């Protein structure tokens, strides 16, 4: 049980009985092997730098050094087992491998002292071992390496088999029994995997999210999800954000559950110093009448010692129904030794011993009753060891009698505590902190006012307001009885110390609280609405009956109630079609049914008009795609048949412009073997140019414009094969690509503006007709302006319902338009992107399994057509989908989507909302969950909060299943009118809090969290998360209100 390891801790002279000595060596190895194996079982892994590994290596080293024939082997100078290894390496391949590794490591740093002399010892004396404590190379290097490489057992086996060569006759290795025992003992440790990475701070091969959650559920043994009980805790904890060690403030059952999990899994933060089962404790609860058996353990963490006691009911079998187990968590004990001043021991020869811990506050902890058999003494001795070097027991548990030299102290426990004494004895120890007395006033302690106060007082402190008066008052209340029999000498000192501490703690606690509140007010007051609206009676949400009540004669006036009911309970599914347009702002509250019908009609009309616009463009894009495709294939085949074009192609590949578009440059045409066609095109090109020139001469710009409009209109009517129009487009493009090297074909530059494009097109003319260039440019510029103005007029007169029509690019209208090259390119690009994403949007959901994808595409295209400056961005489809599923009506979906996007667009890459969200998340976590914040702070990466990216971008749409998305969305929409216009932040926080124990106990970093939440997508308990997020909003509201 006790794992205070001692390195090479057997201090026996060689002159002793050889047999005895060998026995001891073997026992030491056995012990260490057991320790390592235990560690691997309890922690699931063994860290390479674990103390038990070092001890094991030391023990093995001792065995191997004993009886080594140094002289015979020429090892007397180095006298080391490392030299032995190098010698053996010639004959044993495993040893050879390890020997190489050792040399490599040693050579990697020439300045470093050779490990041959530094890492080994010739005699198993403690002194030797400790003589190179600061060596940068780990001790017992080769043994370590061999162990990690799983070769150690084999190498030793070899040594044992060939012991006569290397060892004296009476050596342990040469002994027929001990030798084989030694090698077989090491088979176990050699089968383990050692890890350098799976420490708490850094491990990335963690179990999948599933397993983590399961593990957590099982071990916490609670039927209620953790989220439900979380907020209160946070609230409590949030009062001392500046605490260095939030452990202090946990006395709660949940925390014990968490700690328990920690101590079972990957708990390399705390060392177990003592463990004993069936220790009886009488929990300080009214409903317990008899002492309960449980597991008592003593843990050492960097910050101090902790005593834990867990009822047996929690220790045994997690499999059975765990309904009533939660109650046992209330009984579990956790005591930080920092808080303890006195240890009272009552020794009874009949019944064993009882220990009562008394805190700084004078409060007794429940008595801990040890069964008979020296367990209390063992516990105390572990406790004393654990206190060193910073603290000690006064009087010392072990009386020391200095012998001849100080290294051989003989120790004997105080007579009172040995059970051989017959009488019943009591004894009191005082725990003394040797460190500087000022430490008591360390900020850490002072900030945690509540940590050492009795529970009742603490509760009161939390609930009272911040005035120092009231908090100091609460300190005086309820001081429980002072321990029975403290030696009178100490009473005065104790009282003084208590008085001082109480006063200073009260002051610092109050100060921390004030600072905290001011932070809250400065940073977070904007995140929630000031007015707290309660959810009385609204938890059912808007049911059909409720809706009938709210919607009288088709008019809904009481919007506050609609929002309130939605926020607290969501909307019945069959009502969503009716209510969502209100929530999104499409329908106005107070509108009559007729008004809404008219609006629907209008919306529909506008939607269809817009669709017809882009459908026309789509037709052109499609046609060009076909040609693109044909061309690409033609090129592919020509490429494969004629090798002489290779240099050409290489050049084009490098410039990477070949793929820009169809029938582009002359180079292509040449390789196409397509001369007739090309001539044909040239002719057409000339014709058009000629026309242009004519028009320039006449100055009839409007005619030109009209003509093109007509052409396009014809195209609108479905004349896809109108080759003339298409050729116009082609020519434009061809000339564009031919002549404008500066035109970057990069698809990302979606938005060359209109004028630029026309000028570019214009520039093309100079090939054939340089002298007219100036003319033509003037002319085309004029056209541009003309077009722009006419389009503006179109838009104005058109009166589309779109609330946020883009002002930047004005594509075209249904009654004729000019499709610039740029427009076609941009829309074509968007179209392709939309199609790619529509094709893979929620195909596993029944609505999108086969049909309805076209509807989604139409809505998406219409939006993008109307907002070409924004363009399609991945994620938009995900935002349309739930609306479409609900409405199953394209125009209504479109209108609502436009409203939704007013808020959401800012989250997309061009907006800045995402950064704000991240910054707000940081502040919120800092305020509401200081412990989590500390951990995040420790991992610098956390500051990005990118694991929330998808949450915010899609309003949690990807995190939840459809029915939950509906509820979540409507609650987000309603929230801004009820509680917070940043409700998504609280949702995000609630998600984090739901899994906080898992995140914290596994020390997850940035990447771990991303992975965890990606794996948990669509598996969250939305109801609980929503409930928790509403609670979090309320928490913050209360914090801010409490002025």
């Amino acid at each position, binding site marked *: 049980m006790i794992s205070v390891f001692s390195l090479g801790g057997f201090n026996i002279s060689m002159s002793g009985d050889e047999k005895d000595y060998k026995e001891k060596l073997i026992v030491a190895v056995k012990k260490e092997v057991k320790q390592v194996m235990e560690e691997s079982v309890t922690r699931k892994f063994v860290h390479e730098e674990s103390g038990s590994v070092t001890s094991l290596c030391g023990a093995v080293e001792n065995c191997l050094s004993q009886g080594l024939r140094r002289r015979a082997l020429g090892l007397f100078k180095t006298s080391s087992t490392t030299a032995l290894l190098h010698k053996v390496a*010639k004959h044993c391949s495993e040893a050879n491998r390890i020997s190489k590794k050792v040399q490599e490591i040693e050579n990697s740093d020439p300045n470093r002292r050779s490990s041959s002399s530094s890492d080994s010892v010739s005699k198993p004396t403690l002194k030797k071992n400790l003589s190179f404590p600061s060596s940068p190379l780990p001790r017992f290097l080769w043994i370590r390496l061999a162990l990690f490489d799983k070769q150690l057992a084999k190498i030793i086996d070899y040594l044992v088999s060939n012991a006569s060569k290397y060892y004296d006759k009476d050596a342990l290795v040469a002994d027929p029994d001990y030798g084989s025992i030694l090698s077989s003992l090491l088979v176990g440790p050699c089968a383990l995997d050692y890890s350098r990475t799976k420490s708490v701070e850094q491990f990335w091969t963690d179990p999948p999210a599933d397993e983590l959650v399961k593990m957590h559920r099982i071990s916490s043994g609670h039927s209620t999800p953790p989220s439900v009980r979380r907020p209160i805790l946070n609230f409590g904890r949030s009062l001392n954000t500046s605490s260095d060690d939030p452990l202090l403030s946990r006395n709660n059952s949940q925390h014990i559950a968490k700690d328990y999990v920690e101590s079972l899994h990957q708990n390399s933060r705390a060392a177990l110093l003592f463990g004993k089962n069936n220790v009886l404790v009488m929990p300080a609860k009214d409903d317990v009448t008899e002492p309960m058996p449980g597991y008592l353990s003593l843990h050492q963490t960097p910050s101090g010692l902790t005593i834990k006691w867990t009822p047996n009911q929690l220790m045994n079998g997690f499999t059975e129904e765990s309904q009533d187990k939660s109650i046992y968590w209330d009984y579990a004990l956790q005591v930080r030794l920092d808080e303890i001043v006195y240890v009272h021991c009552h020794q009874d020869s009949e019944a064993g011993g009882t220990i009562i811990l008394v805190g700084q506050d004078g409060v007794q902890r429940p008595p801990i009753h040890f069964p008979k058999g020296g367990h209390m003494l063992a516990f105390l001795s572990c406790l004393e060891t654990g206190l060193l070097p910073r603290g000690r027991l006064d009087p010392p548990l072990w009386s020391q009698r200095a012998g001849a030299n100080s290294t051989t102290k003989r120790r004997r426990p105080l007579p009172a505590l040995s059970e051989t004494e017959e009488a019943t004895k009591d004894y009191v120890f005082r725990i003394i902190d040797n460190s500087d007395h000022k430490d008591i006033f360390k900020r850490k302690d002072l900030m945690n006012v509540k940590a050492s106060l009795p529970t009742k007082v603490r509760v009161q402190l939390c609930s009272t307001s911040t005035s120092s008066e009231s908090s100091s008052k609460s300190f005086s209340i309820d001081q429980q009885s002072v321990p029975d029999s403290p030696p009178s000498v100490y009473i005065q000192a104790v009282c003084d110390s208590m008085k001082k501490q109480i006063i200073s703690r009260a002051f610092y606690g109050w100060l921390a609280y004030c600072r905290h509140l001011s932070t809250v007010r400065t940073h977070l007051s904007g995140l929630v609405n000031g007015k707290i609206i309660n959810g009385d009676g609204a938890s059912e949400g808007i049911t059909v009956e409720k809706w009938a009540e709210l919607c009288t004669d088709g008019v809904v006036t009481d919007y506050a109630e609609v929002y309130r009911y939605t926020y607290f309970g969501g909307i019945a599914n069959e009502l969503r079609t009716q209510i969502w347009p209100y929530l999104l702002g499409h329908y106005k509250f107070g509108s009559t049914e007729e008004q809404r019908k008219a609006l629907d009609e209008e919306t529909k009309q506008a939607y269809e008009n817009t669709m017809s616009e882009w459908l026309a463009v789509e037709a052109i894009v499609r046609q060009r795609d076909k040609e693109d495709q044909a061309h690409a294939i033609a090129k592919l085949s020509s490429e494969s048949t004629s090798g002489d074009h290779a240099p050409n192609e290489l050049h084009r590949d490098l410039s990477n412009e070949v793929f820009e578009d169809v029938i582009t440059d002359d180079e292509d045409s040449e390789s196409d073997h397509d001369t007739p066609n090309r001539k044909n095109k040239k002719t057409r090109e000339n014709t058009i140019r000629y026309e242009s020139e004519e028009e320039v001469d006449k100055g009839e710009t409007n005619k030109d414009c009209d003509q093109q409009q007509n052409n396009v209109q014809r195209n609108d009517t479905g004349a896809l094969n109108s080759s003339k129009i298409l050729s116009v487009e082609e020519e434009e493009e061809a000339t564009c690509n031919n002549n404008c090297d500066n035109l970057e074909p990069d698809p990302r530059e979606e938005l060359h503006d209109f004028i630029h494009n026309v000028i570019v097109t214009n520039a093309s003319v100079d090939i054939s007709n340089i002298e007219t260039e100036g003319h033509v440019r003037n002319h085309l510029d004029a056209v541009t302006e003309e077009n722009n103005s006419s389009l503006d007029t179109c838009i104005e007169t058109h009166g589309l319902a779109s609330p946020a029509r883009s002002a930047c690019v004005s594509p075209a209208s249904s009654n004729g338009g000019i499709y610039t090259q740029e427009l076609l390119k941009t829309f074509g690009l968007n179209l392709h992107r939309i199609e790619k994403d529509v094709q893979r949007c929620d195909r596993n959901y029944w609505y999108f399994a086969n049909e309805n994808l076209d509807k989604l595409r139409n809505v998406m295209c219409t939006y993008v057509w109307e907002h070409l400056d924004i363009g399609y961005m991945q994620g938009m489809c995900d935002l349309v989908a739930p609306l479409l599923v609900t409405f199953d009506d394209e125009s209504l979906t479109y209108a609502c989507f436009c409203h939704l996007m007013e808020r959401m667009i800012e989250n997309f890459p061009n907006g800045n909302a995402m950064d704000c969200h991240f910054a707000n998340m940081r502040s919120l976590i800092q305020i509401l969950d200081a412990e989590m914040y500390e951990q995040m702070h420790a991992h610098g990466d956390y500051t990005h909060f*990118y694991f929330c990216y998808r949450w915010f971008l899609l309003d949690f749409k990807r995190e939840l299943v459809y029915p939950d998305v509906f509820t979540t969305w409507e609650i987000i929409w309603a929230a801004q009118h009820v509680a917070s216009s940043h409700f998504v932040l609280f949702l995000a926080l609630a998600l984090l809090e739901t899994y906080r124990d898992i995140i914290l106990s596994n020390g997850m970093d940035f990447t771990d969290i991303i992975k965890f939440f990606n794996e948990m997508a669509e598996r969250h308990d939305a109801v609980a998360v929503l409930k928790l997020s509403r609670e979090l909003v309320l928490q913050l509201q209360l914090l801010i209100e409490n002025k």
Partner: protein
Amino acid sequence: MASNKKVLLKVIILGDSSVGKTSLMNQYVNRKFSNQYKATIGADFLTKEVTIDDRTVTMQIWDTAGQERFQSLGVAFYRGADCCVLVFDVTAPNTFKSLDSWRDEFLIQAAPREPDNFPFVLLGNKVDLEPRAISAKRAQQWCQAKNNMPYFETSAKEGLNVEQAFLAIAKNALAQQNQSVDLYNEFPDQIKLTNTQKSNGGGDSCAC
């Protein structure tokens, strides 16, 4: 820190949307293909253990959003990458065309110490589909011009060449990481076993 750990190779997959980045990753790690993958939003990663030259390394394969506009997110994810995998769709010429900008953007954002020698691997995906628009030759030519970038033609759907491609990726990543190992590299995980293995003792008989 990084060099002190067990070897972790960070690999970033880049390429236009819908070229099959997610599918390739899942095919490699889980040996599964689904036509129901959604467009990746943000970033995700999977890990896989591979053995290279007797060394077990963990590949952390990052899948990213394909739309260029989301690249601004990249910097957080690209940091510390050991290899970058560029993917295009052999049936979609445009996805090939944008490779240059993906590569450039990565180099800018990840800012590796030696941009010229940073390992990239090019994958031409969807070779199971017809009609093809980009020939192997053209892709290879592009690779030649980019410091002889390795090129693989894959099909995530059929699992064709995926294993080989990622093995090459892992090797390149490992080579990159070994080059940039710190001087203060402590024992024992950075020991190069590659040469020591075969040189000696192979035929030696041993009593073990």
